[in-house]
């Protein structure tokens, strides 16, 4: 067996090892921390690419931790969609981390940066684990790690708002994981299995015997992942948490963390529950309608926000709605749109939070009203903001349009015209709150006595890279789309 065979486990493990080493390393040679984490990211990225190559050569495969086969052991499953998620996680994780290198010096005390790196590695590692695992309980463990790490990555700033937001997040996410654990118990009760595939095989028989159990479990799962991913009525923790966190944390939380929960929900709905079960119980309908409400209300709430980061956070609620809409429509093309939006939104929201971070660092302003004329002092950054905003609205040439295109097409193919209208309407709502910021930033004069602090080139470089990526995925989305199409076709048949 070649080393390549172990890459799925290694991707997760090197992040965890890195997380444990980090506090020690920080004490010993604090300058080595950042390069070490960068190296780990690059390694993981290389491994993910190698996995992709292997997938093309040999198709999906499984990895058994400790050589224990499924009924007892933990199984990792490697297929195209999962590797796609891992690539996004690690790639964008690397990108955000590059930005964080300089931003943290401004936002955090120096002595906690080692902890921050550790948490960051833990977060990315646990998310990769969530993406790859094929085991209900293992998913729970990674969810808890991810939950604690994401709370900690907020509270590390130690301001009052952060602590409070972090606590709120912690409680709700504990509720979420509690519900999920209960759901696992319910499913385990009737099937005696924890592995996705084995549950799927055992479910039809169990569904006949204990339908109520499964119904409850389904409801609990939706609540659990809905809470974690800020599905509409369960989103209350998100605005505070994402707005008060340090900017790189906001970027990674809004960009990656909520997506991975949506992805896990997708995995469970499509790989654990058999299709017949999904038809019998309107799970997809529920998700779809909640997503719709989220899309509309997220945008409406975002409009009335005064704080820039809070506005972006509410916008995330709306945008995660698109991903859930893709899942809810239960239609391959819509799913394709949803998955493409995972990448897209991670890119643009990450970039927007970075922009917010730069603005706050350079001018100390974070209220939407105070951003007048900021385009004159931070031109490149505000151009990036413009591109991000355009992508949110869905202007041609940006990635946002492509994901909306597929979502809308999927809705039409599923004969759900209403949701096309929702997509169009929400784009308009996005326009209503993104455009004034852009206009005011460029056309009003900059008023301010205090000088604009210089911003590190690395940060601006990261933002520029994001901007280019957003445009690239808007102008030439074909490779990703073709990839996703093939992946989804392999998974659910397109």
């Amino acid at each position, binding site marked *: 067996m070649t080393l390549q065979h172990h890459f799925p486990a290694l991707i997760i493990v090197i992040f965890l090892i890195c997380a444990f080493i980090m506090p020690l390393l920080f004490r010993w040679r604090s300058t080595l921390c950042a390069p070490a984490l960068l190296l780990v990211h690059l390694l993981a990225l290389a491994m993910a690419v190698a996995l992709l190559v292997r997938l093309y050569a040999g198709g999906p495969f499984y990895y058994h931790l400790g050589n224990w086969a499924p009924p007892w052991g933990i199984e990792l499953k490697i297929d195209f969609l999962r590797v796609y998620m891992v690539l996004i996680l690690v790639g964008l994780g690397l990108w955000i981390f590059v930005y964080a290198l300089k931003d943290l010096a401004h936002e955090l005390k120096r002595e906690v940066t080692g902890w921050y790196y550790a948490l960051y590695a833990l977060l990315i590692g646990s998310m990769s684990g969530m993406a790859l695992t094929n085991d209900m309980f293992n998913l729970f463990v990674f969810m808890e790690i991810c939950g604690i790490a994401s709370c900690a990555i907020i509270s590390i700033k130690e301001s009052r708002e952060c602590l409070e937001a972090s606590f709120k997040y912690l409680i709700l996410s504990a509720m979420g994981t509690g519900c999920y654990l209960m759901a696992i118990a319910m499913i385990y009760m009737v099937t005696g299995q924890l592995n996705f595939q084995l549950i799927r095989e055992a479910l039809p028989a169990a569904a006949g015997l204990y339908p109520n159990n499964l119904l409850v479990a389904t409801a609990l799962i939706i609540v659990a992942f809905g809470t974690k991913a800020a599905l509409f009525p369960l989103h209350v923790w998100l605005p505070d948490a994402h707005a008060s966190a340090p900017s790189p944390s906001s970027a990674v939380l809004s960009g990656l963390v909520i997506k991975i929960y949506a992805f896990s929900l997708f995995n469970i709905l499509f790989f654990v529950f058999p299709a017949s079960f999904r038809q019998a119980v309107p799970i997809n309908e529920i998700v779809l309608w909640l997503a719709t409400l989220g899309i509309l209300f997220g945008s409406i709430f975002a409009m009335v926000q005064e704080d820039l980061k809070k506005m972006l956070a509410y916008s995330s609620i709306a945008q995660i709605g698109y991903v859930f809409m893709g899942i809810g429509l239960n239609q391959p093309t819509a799913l394709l749109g949803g998955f493409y939006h995972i990448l897209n939104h991670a890119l643009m929201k990450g970039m927007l939070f970075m922009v917010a971070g730069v603005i706050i660092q350079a001018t100390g302003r974070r209220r939407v009203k105070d951003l007048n004329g900021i385009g004159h002092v931070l031109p490149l950054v505000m151009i990036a903001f413009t591109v991000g905003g355009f992508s949110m609205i869905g202007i041609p040439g940006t990635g946002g349009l492509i994901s909306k295109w597929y979502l809308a097409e999927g809705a039409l193919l599923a004969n759900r015209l209403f949701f096309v209208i929702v997509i169009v309407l929400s*784009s308009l709502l996005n326009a209503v709150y993104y*455009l004034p910021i852009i206009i005011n930033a460029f056309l009003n004069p900059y008023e301010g006595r205090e000088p604009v602090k210089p911003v590190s080139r690395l940060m601006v470089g990261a933002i520029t890279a994001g901007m280019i990526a957003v445009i690239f995925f808007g102008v030439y989305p074909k490779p990703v789309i073709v990839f996703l199409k093939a992946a989804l076709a392999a998974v659910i048949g397109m």
Partner: protein
Amino acid sequence: MNEAAASAVPVFAFLFPILMTPVIMFAGRRSGRLRNALALATTVVTFLAVISLYPRIIGGEVIQFTFFEILPELHISFRVDLLSFCLAALSAFIWVLCTIYSIDYMAREHAGSRYYPVLIFTLGACLGIFMAGDFFTLFIFFELMSLIAYILVIHEETPAALKAGYKYLIMTIIGGLALFFGIIITFELGGTVSLSGGPLVQETSLLAFLAFISFLIGFGMKAGIFPLHVWLPDAHPVAPSPASALLSGIMLKTGAYGLLRVIFHVFSVELVKSGGWDKIMGVIAVITILLGSAVALTQDDIKRRLAYSSIGQMGYILLGMSILNENTLIGDIFHIFTHAMIKSTLFLAAGAIIWKTGKRLISEMPGIGRQMPFTLGCFSLAALAMIGIPPLNGFLSKWTLGLGALEAGMPFYVLILLVSSLLNALYYLPIIVPAFFGGLESDHEHGFDIKEATPRMLVPVAILALGTLIFGLLPSNIPFDLSRLTASYLLRGGPF
């Protein structure tokens, strides 16, 4: 010329301005003169490139070119046929004139290094719309042009301009989303959005109707038809005059062009008629004509009056589309030419007046014709053409439209045309008559003090005004012939 080189010309035509934009932007930092020269050269080269297609297009060739596949089944592609050529040539021509005009006009304005790149980029985007080979490409360039034009609208950065610009932007985005909606439904129904095949939608259905309505909203938003015109009277007047000329003269036509494409390529004439959708367009057209003309009467600001007049004129074009027989179609396309020329003349002339005297209000203008006889002369010629006085080209287009309406058995529409001509007369004559004959007492001392604008501003105005005269006098002029060819091309699904 081999095949690749043949298709390269249209691509060059719209890509060249876009590529020149950064060059002009950087040149603008060095020297203003270099920038202006580059901008002018770009428009001229573009115009020549477009014109060079004439022999092939007139020979019935359809030039197609596919760039790359942006998504499966969705391409960035280009396709030049007669209709594309008409509009592309027209816009390139007017752009050249407006750029010449801008050189002096913009010398007084600020932020010239922003204006020229945007101007040139808009040309590229505009040509991109006209030469798009499928609706997706069209949509991309449409949005691109609309968004970039925002910078032209708010160029003066006054609060009024910003407010109008915001309205424009929001309406543009609504229009863009409606287009998106329409295109995606079309894609779903037809499986492709390419213009090169036959009609994409074969039968009426709720979805098809929705697609039609959203196309009507999307393109109608740009064309300024009722009730989506609200942004237009605010946005056009606040822009610098050459930009207003382009906004009113060319960019409104992109909406009309899009609607023509929708009628002939997405649906078909029979489908539109069997669905009764032509009635909808007819009703909207009538309201648009009357409303635009009537409201124009009440405006005192000359550019606002012109803007409302544009709304009325776009109503004619929509009216032609609602009848859809050969004569109305000829009138329709010819009116696109006509209106582009007339409205550009009017805006440029009005711009010259404002530039020279600072007067915007019609009530301040009595006697101005004696100060600026040449400008006002051109203005009057264009205004008379707009009213439809023979032998100017406005008459020809209205005549053809009326003829078509009578052929289709709709004398009511002819009545509407007459009424609106009357209204046109009512709001244009009160500008012209006092300008030449009024204000004798108050402006006595300036009476014969001729203060014309610079030649570089007058020449474009003169050329355009001459165009209104020539193309009306000769019934077999180039635009009219082109219109005839295009109409038969569209109606028969092939050239001639």
